[in-house]
């Protein structure tokens, strides 16, 4: 592939010795800048303590991410500090923990609004404008829904081969949900936002965020205690990266996002009851794993329908959860699933709109979800008011998120040879109301993205845009590494680190003191040896190496690799 071509990117070079050298050379403005002003412009007095310095570094990084033009660039910059991926919490919606309720609410900063004693937990008055219309549409779908239930849930009508009981039930539920959506969407085909919608079937939905206020573990405390600089910060709470996953069966996507349920100044959104602090997530039974920060929402950035009207989930995970923890734990497991799934979905959408784990929202995002096994239904509405939960914002945030979870309702009592008994038309009306709820177009929906929004409109050349997109897809693809990250074996820890009993062994390993000592945790994503360009295929004979990935300019040349400091000429060296 040809690697160098014209474009503004070539003019920006990375100089390790003097960061501003290139600015001095290229930043020649036509008008001379006066050195004198009327009042002295003193620079701000910075707090030089370690804590403040670390916070400033974080803030600068967040500020850089906020200023990037597209979602792809923001995601790559978010992954930039970690070449081997973040050591992040595996926060899967289908793996609730028996002790995890408090942690889930803290990690997503969500207040669960469950009304006790009937009436359903869904927000009062949110569906008032669409409920009457939904009730008139129910008679049109009742027969078809009954037929769907009869087809899928009475004994073995659709043959899919001999499968275990649980797989059969899962297929039945998924087929029912797919059929139900088809019936409702077909009946509501004339409604503009349904007509214009796009459907995701079993989409991959993941979201990444930083959670602050977590107490450090003993290993981290020991490292801090052993150094004079960091001794006093031994017990400071830390940030943990969290990788959330949601696994819906269906996602109905529309162009406009749902209107807010409660305004931002409502007490439910600002001062609801939440857990004040948590333990290390591993205390609740969660596990960590190394993974790149992945935020996807069923599609790559660039689709027209960016908001989701409704997500439909399967209750399959509850089967093994109930076997392990009993029937009484079912409600708790369901609550955790809806919480994690809703937050992940909402945050993934927020990230695609330019907000994210380090960029605060400017308007709330609302998600509707329903979880069912065909017969038992739980509906939920989620309002995302804050997406930044890092540092002090996990506990000290002016806003919190809200989840409304309804009581469990049955869609039908039983299905026999005679037909379906006891179809719950009221529940059907609520589901149709969820479809009918119309989104509102926002003024300035993406304040943190460039007006053009898309990567293909970046000023860099075509080749850079293509390669950057492939790089972005690769990083977010969960593909395993071909070459494993450096590992200190246990015998090395014993004989080389803890009790140094091999004095004549040459220090060649990555953790040993020599010229090439490296900490794998500190290796950045753009810290890789550049590919050499053989002389016969070079366009410019002085440009020996390919450019390096960069979140702002997509790819840039390394200053010190260029022979004789010959900067490639844009016009002359354009690729074909």
């Amino acid at each position, binding site marked *: 592939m040809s690697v160098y071509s014209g474009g503004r990117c070539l003019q920006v070079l990375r100089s390790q010795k003097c960061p501003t050298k290139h600015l001095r050379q290229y930043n020649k403005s036509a008008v001379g800048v006066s050195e004198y002003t009327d009042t002295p412009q003193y620079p701000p007095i910075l707090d030089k303590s370690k804590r403040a310095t670390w916070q400033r570094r974080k803030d600068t990084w967040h500020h850089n991410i906020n200023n990037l033009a597209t979602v792809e660039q923001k995601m790559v910059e978010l992954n930039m500090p970690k070449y081997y991926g973040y050591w992040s919490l595996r926060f899967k919606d289908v793996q609730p923990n028996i002790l995890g309720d408090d942690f889930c609410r803290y990690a997503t900063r969500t207040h669960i609004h469950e009304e006790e004693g009937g009436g359903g937990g869904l927000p009062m008055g949110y569906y008032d404008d669409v409920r009457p219309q939904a009730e008139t549409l129910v008679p049109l779908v009742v027969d078809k829904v009954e037929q769907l239930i*009869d087809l899928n849930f009475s004994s*073995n009508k659709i043959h899919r081969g001999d499968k*275990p*009981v649980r797989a059969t039930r899962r297929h039945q539920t998924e087929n029912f949900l797919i059929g139900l959506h*088809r019936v409702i969407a077909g009946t509501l085909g004339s409604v503009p936002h349904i007509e214009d919608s796009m459907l995701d079937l079993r*989409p*991959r939905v993941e979201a990444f965020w930083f959670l602050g206020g977590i107490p450090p573990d003993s290993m981290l405390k020991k490292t801090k205690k052993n150094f004079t600089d960091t001794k006093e910060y031994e017990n400071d709470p830390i940030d943990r990266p969290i990788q959330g996953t949601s696994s819906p069966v269906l996602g109905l996507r529309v162009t406009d996002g749902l209107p807010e349920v409660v305004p931002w100044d409502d007490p439910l959104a600002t001062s609801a009851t939440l857990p004040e602090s948590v333990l290390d997530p591993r205390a609740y039974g969660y596990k960590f794993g190394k993974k790149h920060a992945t935020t996807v929402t*069923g599609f790559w950035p660039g689709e027209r329908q960016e908001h989701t009207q409704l997500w439909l989930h399967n209750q399959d995970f509850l089967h093994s959860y109930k076997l392990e923890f009993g029937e009484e734990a079912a409600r708790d497991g369901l609550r955790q699933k809806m919480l994690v799934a809703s937050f992940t979905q909402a945050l993934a959408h927020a990230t695609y709109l330019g907000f994210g784990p380090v960029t605060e929202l400017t308007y709330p995002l609302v998600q509707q979800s329903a979880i069912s096994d065909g017969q038992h239904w739980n509906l939920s509405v989620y309002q995302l008011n804050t997406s930044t939960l890092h540092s002090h914002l996990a506990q000290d945030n002016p806003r919190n998120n809200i989840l409304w979870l309804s009581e469990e309702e049955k869609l039908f009592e039983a299905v026999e040879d005679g037909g379906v008994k006891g179809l719950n038309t009221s529940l059907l009306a609520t589901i149709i109301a969820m479809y009918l709820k119309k989104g509102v177009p926002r003024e300035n929906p993406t304040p943190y993205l460039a007006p053009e929004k898309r990567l293909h409109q970046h000023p860099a050349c075509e080749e850079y845009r293509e390669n950057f997109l492939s790089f972005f897809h690769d990083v977010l693809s969960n593909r395993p590494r071909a070459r494993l990250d450096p590992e200190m074996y246990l015998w090395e820890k014993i004989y080389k680190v803890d009790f140094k009993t091999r004095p004549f062994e040459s220090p060649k390993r990555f953790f040993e003191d020599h010229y090439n000592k490296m900490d794998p945790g500190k290796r950045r994503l753009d810290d890789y040896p550049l590919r050499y360009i053989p002389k016969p295929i070079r366009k410019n004979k002085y440009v020996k190496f390919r450019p390096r990935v960069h979140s702002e300019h997509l790819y840039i040349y390394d200053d010190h690799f260029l022979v004789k400091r010959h900067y490639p000429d844009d016009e002359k060296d354009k690729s074909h």
Partner: protein
Amino acid sequence: MRGTEVLLRQHLHRQFKTYWLTQGRRRVPDTGAEKLLAAKGIPVVDPKDILTPPYPRQPTLELPPHVPNQDGVPRNWSISDKLVQESQLEPCYVFDNHFCPVMGLPQAQLLTNTLVHWSLPQAVLDHATPTTPHEDDRVKEAILHAHLMDSTQSKLPRILDVINRPGWNDRIPYGIPLSRSNKTLTYQLLLLLDQMCGGVTTHRMLAENAISRVTFRHSECLMQFEHVSGFVVSSPHPLPRVAGQEEVANTEREPMPDIYPVSPFVSVLPPKTQYNMQDQYGVSVPDLYPHTVIIHNNAPRLRCNSEGFASMTLMFAFSHAAAFARMLGKSDTELENSPVVVQVVNCNRQQYQLGVLQLNTLDLTRSDRRNLFWTQPWQQLFSSCTFKAALPVLDGYNPEVFSLLKGLHMQGLAEATELTRKEKEVEKDGKGDKV
């Protein structure tokens, strides 16, 4: 490839062999313990007097009879049943999803006793109205989403370019598997079609991954079609017959292709001795008639040409129609009056083939009446769907495919609305309140 060093490698098998040889030769030396103990007055006994000698293993016990599974679903396969069935079952040619006949469409015709007309029925073509720009936009969006913008990243089969780059292993591709993109696109197109019909077709039921199986005796050979379809769209009303009784009677005079000396059962695989004997239709509800069978051909590189593709379309359509007729217990005379009509859509990424089959007879050796299949040569829905400088681009979109799909989707509607109207009238007269 791992960059880590191998520290100490030993061949465990050789090590084990060496130990076995050397240690096996060891003899227990006389330590003098026996004499010492006897001198001290402690009784010493020969181990052979206490321990029983090694005895030969007992012959294998007969397995207990097969217990049905806890869920109550009867299974044809069990260990004891299999062994019994193997000796008793006649060898049967099983044609499954992957079977592509060597001799192409003529072979499929001979297997299914079908005549092929190379144009879709007039009723379908009449309803295949040209697409509006709005419809085109929606379909293009659906294609882009299913084949490009879906964020699933799964490991894809490696495709090696042996001619231009021999011995070169490309990086393992990750992306959207074909099974997934076919399913997403088909479902979205069905939703679009339902919307365009104004929601009148929502009474049709959808079944995913249904398996249809039907066994036939065809000129001394036993053959079975076992097909897994992507989607089966079933309707409460049957599709109207396409060819009238006269046309069906005329099929006697039309010549069937002849592939002599090749037998219609020529196949890469030999006939099976273990197969499932139970016939079934994927959606075993007698009130739901098959409307459209949508086949997802998920081969990443299609190994057959246009004719092979057409033959697979025909066999799929036939297997579903025949399985349905078998389920209802229809005889040939009943089929004469009300033949089973099934529509089929076969898709593999861009290639789409549509067809309509009318099942007139289940007797595959019959020459006075044959089944009829209307189809068109396959068409491409689009030619390529890729990112070009980070811009999603769809090239070569062909609007004709969607208009033909519309034509297929509209079949069975007029009759349905007529029947529904009559049903409502009857109910009104009968009961008065209920609608």
